[in-house]
Structures are given as C-alpha cells and as structure tokens.
C-alpha cells in the first residue's frame, strides 16, 4: 500500500532515516508553535506578557483572560464578552448545516439516480457556484437581505450560507451516490418503493460516511466564515469570527493580548474539537471538496 521505495544501501540508510525524522520533528514544532503561543499567551497575565518571553510557559497560569474574553471583553461599545457572538454562530451554523446537507443529499440523489436530459449542465452550473468569488454577489445579496428585512439577522445569514453551500453539498452527495449501485434503486422500484421511499429507506441509511463528511465540511466553513458575517451583520448580531476581529483590531484602551488570544481560542475551539474527534472525515471532506468531478 505504501508507495515508499525501500532504501537498499544499508550505510546511507541510517543517515537517511535520521534526516527524515529530524526534518519531520522540526516541521512539526514549527506547525505547532503558533497554537502553543496562542494558548500560553492566553494563560498569562499582561505583565508577564510584556516583560517575558513569548515562548516561555506561563509562570502562573490563570484562566482570568478566558473568563474576561467570554463574559466581559469590550467589542465595539458593549462590554459583555464574546459569549453572545459565540451563540450567534451556533444559531447560524446548526440550521444552515442541516438544511444545506439535506438539500445536497436530495440533489445528489436526483442527479445520479433520476437523470434527465441536461443533468450534466445543471450539475456543472451548481459546481461552478462553489468557486465564484463571493465578492461578485455581495452587493446584490446585501440589497436583497435589506428588501426582505433580513439584514443583520441570523436568519439572513442562515439563508446565505445555505445558498452558497448548496454547490458543495450537492457535489459531495452526487459523487457518493454516483458509486451507489443503480441496481439497488431498480430493485426498490420493482419492490414498489417510490421516489422518497427509495431515498429514505435505501440510500440515506447507507449514506453515513458522506453525511459526516458533509456536515463537518459545512460546519467548518460556515463557522469560519468572515466575509458574509462582516458584510451582512453588525453589532450584536455578528457571528464569532467578526466579533473576534473587532475585539482584536479595536484600538481603544489597553491592548490585552491575553484576552485576544483567549477569544481566538474560543473561536477556534468548535472546529478544532470537530477536527480532533473526526479528523479522518474532516480530511476526507477537504479532499472531496478539492478533487472535483
């Protein structure tokens, strides 16, 4: 399974192994450093940060900065911490993920098992929608949300994320169902199951892996979104990423690096948690999104 050619010469082999492990360990340290610095800074006091060494472990670790970031930090004019924004993101992510995944599954089902003339064009158009720079739809979307009375609302953001996530969820399910045997659908048809029965009883129960992949992909993307958040919401209605940016880039008062870092950790926690719990699926999702067709 591994493509690695085995090194034949024994003399240079040891040196090669040494080099490989050395390089990998150094690289791993470099990749971990920003996370380590972020975490250790968030556990330090401001005095320790100013006087001390960024790479040093906190001498007196405290979660004071975390508490402050969560409940007291000032974002804009209100000083109630990031907790409200955290919940905003949750309230935005959950419905957007559920709706876009469900629609993607149905679309993928139709595009593979109920093909019609032109299905390829329809899919191609949906696929291209994954790639457009969102700047090209930003102004009309802002106008439309305004007209619908949804600007600066979680509902509006849910709608935006569903709309622009559809291409990806459809792609995931289409590619998965493409490999699902047609004969099973035919058998179910002869057995008397209709369009929705076949979907519900035959395809969906076998879709576990792709559902996990899609949910993780959508969750990560929507949670991490900044552009839509900053364009279509402001103040109290902002999602987490926008609040974090406002907190970090505000220039009023004393710069509290530890609070900034603690807020960044909060913003990173949900996706990191998903990554740690279901990393395998996470990577598969990224790949599925990257390798098209």
């Amino acid at each position, binding site marked *: 399974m591994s493509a690695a050619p085995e090194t034949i010469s024994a003399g240079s082999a040891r040196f090669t192994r040494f080099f490989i492990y050395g390089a990998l360990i150094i690289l791993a340290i470099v990749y971990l450093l920003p996370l380590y610095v972020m975490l250790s800074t968030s556990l330090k006091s401001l005095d320790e940060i100013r006087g001390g060494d960024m790479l040093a472990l906190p001498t007196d670790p405290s979660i004071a900065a975390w508490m402050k970031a969560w409940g007291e930090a000032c974002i804009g004019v209100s000083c109630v911490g990031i907790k409200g924004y955290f919940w905003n993101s949750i309230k935005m992510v959950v419905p957007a993920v559920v709706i876009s995944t469900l629609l993607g599954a149905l679309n993928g089902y139709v595009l593979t098992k109920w093909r019609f003339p032109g299905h390829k064009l329809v899919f191609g158009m949906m696929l291209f929608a994954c790639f457009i720079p969102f700047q*090209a739809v930003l102004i009309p979307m802002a106008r439309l949300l305004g007209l619908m009375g949804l600007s600066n609302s979680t509902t509006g953001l849910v709608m935006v994320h569903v709309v622009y996530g559809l291409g990806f969820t459809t792609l995931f399910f289409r590619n998965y169902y493409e490999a699902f045997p047609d004969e099973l659908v035919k058998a179910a048809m002869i057995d008397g199951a209709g369009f929705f029965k076949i979907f519900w009883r035959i395809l969906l129960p076998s879709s576990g892996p792709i559902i996990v992949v899609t949910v993780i992909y959508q969750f990560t993307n929507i949670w991490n979104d900044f552009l839509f958040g900053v364009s279509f919401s402001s103040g109290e209605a902002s999602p987490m990423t926008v609040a974090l940016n406002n907190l970090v880039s505000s220039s009023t008062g004393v710069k509290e690096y530890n609070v900034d870092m603690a807020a960044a950790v909060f913003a990173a926690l949900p996706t990191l948690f998903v990554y740690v719990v279901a990393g395998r699926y996470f990577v598969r999702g990224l790949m599925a999104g990257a390798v098209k067709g």
Partner: protein
Amino acid sequence: MTTIEPMPVIAAERPRKSFADRLRSGLPKLVLAPSFAVILIFVYGFILWTITLSFTTSRILPVYKWGGFDAYFRLWSQPNWYVAMQNLAIFGVLYIALCTAIGLFIAILMDQRIRAEGVLRPIFLYPMALSFVVTGTAWKWFLNPGLGLEHTMRNLGWESFTFDWLVNPKMAIYTVVIAGVWQASGFIMAMFLAGLRGIDGEIIKAAQIDGASTVSIYRRIIIPLLRPVFLSAFIVLAHMAIKSYDLVIALTGGGPGNATELPSTFMYSYTFNRNQMNVGSASAVMMLMGITAIIVPYLYSELREKKQ
C-alpha cells in the same frame, strides 16, 4: 428467421397515464428545481446584477443610470488597484509555489514508512480547521515586533535580530504569505500523501528491479504520476488566493497604509466604505473573470473525462 410465429393481435386495454403517474415521473425534477432556481438567482442572477452595477454610476446606493465603462476606467486608474494586483501576484505565486513545495516535501517524508504518522499528520493539518481570522490573530501576535518573535529572539541573546515585516510596508505582504502557507500547506500535504498512496506498488517494484535509485524513482516515476494532484492543488490554491480576504483583514487590515491591499479587500472597501459601488462592482467582476479563467477549463475537462 423462420421460426418466429405470427403474433395474434389482442385488443387488450391499455391503461392511460394518470395524473399521479405524471406527477411521479416529474417528481425528481420538482425536488431539484428549488435548489437549481436558488443557484440560478443567487449565483448567476446576482453575478449579472453585479456586472450591471459595474456599468452604472452607482455610488453609495445602486442607481441604474448607464455609466458605460467609466467604472472600469476609474478602476484601472486607481494606484490602489495596481497595488492590489501586484500584491495578488506576489501572494498568489508564493502561496501556490510554497504550499505545493512544502506540501510535497512533507508528503514524501511522511511516505517513508514513518512510525509516528498518526501523530504527525494531524499536527500538519490542524491549521486548516482554523478560521482565517484566528490564523490572522495568532500570527499577528506571533510576528508582533514589540512582543513577539523579535522580542523573543532578542531575549535569547540575539540583540540585533530584527523582524518587523508586519509593520514594514515593503515586507508586510510576505507575512500574509507566511500565515497562508502555514494554514494550507498541511492540507496540500494530505492531498499529495493520498496521491502517493494511490500509486500502484508494482510500478515501483518494477523500477527497483530495473535498478533505479530512490531519488530517481521519485523524480522519474512517482512525481510525474502525481500530475493530477498537482493540478488539483493548483486549482484549490489559486482559487483560495484570489478569494483571500479574512486573513489579510485579521493579520494586517490591509495595511500598513495600503501595503497589503488585495483585490478582495479593495472590492470591500470601495463598495462599503468608500461609497464607490460601481468601481467595487467592476473589481468584483475582474475577480470573477480571474477565477472563471482558471476554473471553467478545469471543470469542463473533469466533467468530460467522466463521460468517457
């Protein structure tokens, strides 16, 4: 052909297609229709809308008064836009080249029957799970000249160590490259690793029997076989580079001055802050054209290959 018996023609009743039957045959399209309509309106309709705006005289609000190519002339006479384009060129080229090179390098190292692969792989990949805003925030702190890396190195005794790229207009765009590469290279590594694992082991055995060294096996056989992965990596990275917005905002805010302006930040500030909606739209159209030029040929070839 002699044994076919003549068929007795029976006047059997033929059931008509009922309304329910017709509904049933149209149901799949009915299910797909809302999604497709949404894509048509919110993607293609909105793109047309944006294109329309770029030909108007819209400033703070959309007005539908014909302005011709005025917005495009104004766009291409903005020094800011040239800065953005130049930055995109620097960022794009370095980001794609470094992510690919580092990703491939780590993937090859990881493919040497590494014991701790299960520990190492998530370390290289976790940055991809983070929001660009978090990445920007972390690196902004890490590269902070007063308290970050520079401060630390001086504390360690390297008194003359200077790393002020974040506040140096000439160098600031390279900090965006560093943070961007840190975030995406692990993912490119995973793509290459998957590609390496997909190569038929017998080809490599054959090359070994033919007497090829490890280096030449990689150079002559494995890397050429990874061509599709290179293409996919390029597409992913190029498209991420053009869309990059959050990272710049969080890391440098487009500054110092306009030193890290990118087309994406340009579009946003002209549209929403500087009240030049037509110029903002024109810049969005330029971005769309850039991405279309990369994506459409790729999608076309991918969908065509599928057919064969």
